[in-house]
């Protein structure tokens, strides 16, 4: 095993970095879309059912199939990593939208009423009250989404997008347990690290309860 690690050192590092890139890029996109979408749902409750429903349906599509569906798409289909990032971002949307919505609607009504009564504009309310007070809940969504995507990203190797899945698929094809583990173990470590790191941040951002 040690020997294996020594030989594949460079490749493990490269694929891990690729994996991190796929997940980081998709999470960035998902946050940029998901958080504003969640905020919008708190302002326009009528959109809640269709948007949450849509995100839920995406979540039920098997990942391999979703990668496949995106293959013929123009521009996206031209590069495997684009497809992978898009698919991962789609998966990440639901937990982020949901937690943003839940976090903001969960802000203490007393605080909200006092803020309105003191003359905060709806924008000030969002930036000074709602987002800071729901940040830990939103981050919990980001955390769930990140851990989920680190797992799903291994499948992206099936369409040639790289990442730690390369080892796993190669290991499966060659019936080589060491290769499978070379992909699975770093992926698991990544997921654990993301979970712990974001969990720590989430706890730090949790507002004190009055």
């Amino acid at each position, binding site marked *: 095993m040690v020997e294996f690690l020594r030989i594949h050192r460079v490749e493990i590092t490269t694929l891990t970095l690729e994996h991190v890139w796929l997940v980081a890029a998709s999470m960035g996109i998902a946050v940029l879309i998901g958080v504003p979408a969640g905020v919008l749902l708190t302002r326009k409750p009528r959109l809640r059912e269709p948007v949450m429903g849509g995100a839920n349906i995406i979540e039920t599509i098997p990942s391999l199939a979703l990668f496949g569906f995106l293959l013929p798409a123009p521009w996206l289909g031209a590069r495997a990593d684009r497809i992978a990032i898009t698919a991962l971002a789609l998966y990440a949307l639901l937990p982020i939208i949901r937690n943003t919505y839940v976090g903001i609607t969960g802000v203490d009504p*007393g*605080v909200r009423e*006092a803020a*309105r009564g*003191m*003359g905060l504009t709806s924008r*000030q309310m969002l930036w000074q009250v709602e987002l800071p007070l729901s940040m830990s809940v939103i981050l919990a969504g980001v955390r769930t989404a990140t851990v989920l995507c680190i797992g799903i990203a291994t499948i992206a190797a099936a369409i040639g997008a790289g990442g730690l899945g390369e080892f796993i698929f190669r290991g499966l094809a060659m019936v080589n347990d060491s290769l499978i583990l070379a992909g699975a173990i770093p992926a698991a470590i990544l997921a654990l690290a993301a979970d712990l790191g974001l969990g720590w941040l989430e706890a730090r951002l949790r*507002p*004190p*309860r009055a």
Partner: protein
Amino acid sequence: MDEPAIAFRGVTYRAQGRVLLGPLDLDVRRGETLVLLGRSGSGKTTALKLINRLLEESEGSVLVDGRPTREWDAITLRRHIGYVIQETGLFPHYTVGKNVGLVPRLLGKPEAQIRERVDAMLRLVDLDPQEFRQRYPHQLSGGQRQRVGVARALAGDPEILLMDEPFGALDPLSRVELQRQFLEIQKRVRKTTVLVTHDVGEALLLATRIALLEGGKLMGIYSRPEFFESTDATVAAYRAAWSGNLQFPGEDRHGGIS
């Protein structure tokens, strides 16, 4: 006679087709403490929220400084009016200093002036600025939080102060302390105040005049002596409920069991 600070003119408030308040005609004089007294569902909080346009009347108009609230920009109107609620609504992620300085900051006052104002307001409610400025709301007792709530409402130097059950969540001792302190502060700042409560004792202690609401209707407006002398059945019931508090059931005045 002075123009009233706040005036309700034939105001009705309806929600889902049901009349929750009104028609209401009521003047609040400058510098007085008008207490809206009534039981839950009497419409007193609704009336209060119509003043700073957290709610909008269905008919009639509410005038603040002679101008219908509908014509005011809602944000300007609210910054012109201090607002204190039962659970204080302090921002849990802001320090006491930042909470109190909120409205002056919204009004775009310079930092140095805000700081000065925050300290003055904390001293006004009897909290040492050095000790409390940097604390967070969860590090305060209920009574201290409520004081900060009052300091925050007064920080923008509003003409009008609205208080919705401001002392309702406090233990009896803190409650009495804060009521007395409020009287002291009011003597100094003389804000036009509308205070909502269901507590007759509190109304009698704090009010210049008491407006009695029942089922969304105004039953009458009473000064303290008028409240004691009124022969109206509702007023009498309130008086009885209040003085009844001073006796134990099954005991006569001398403490013996009857």
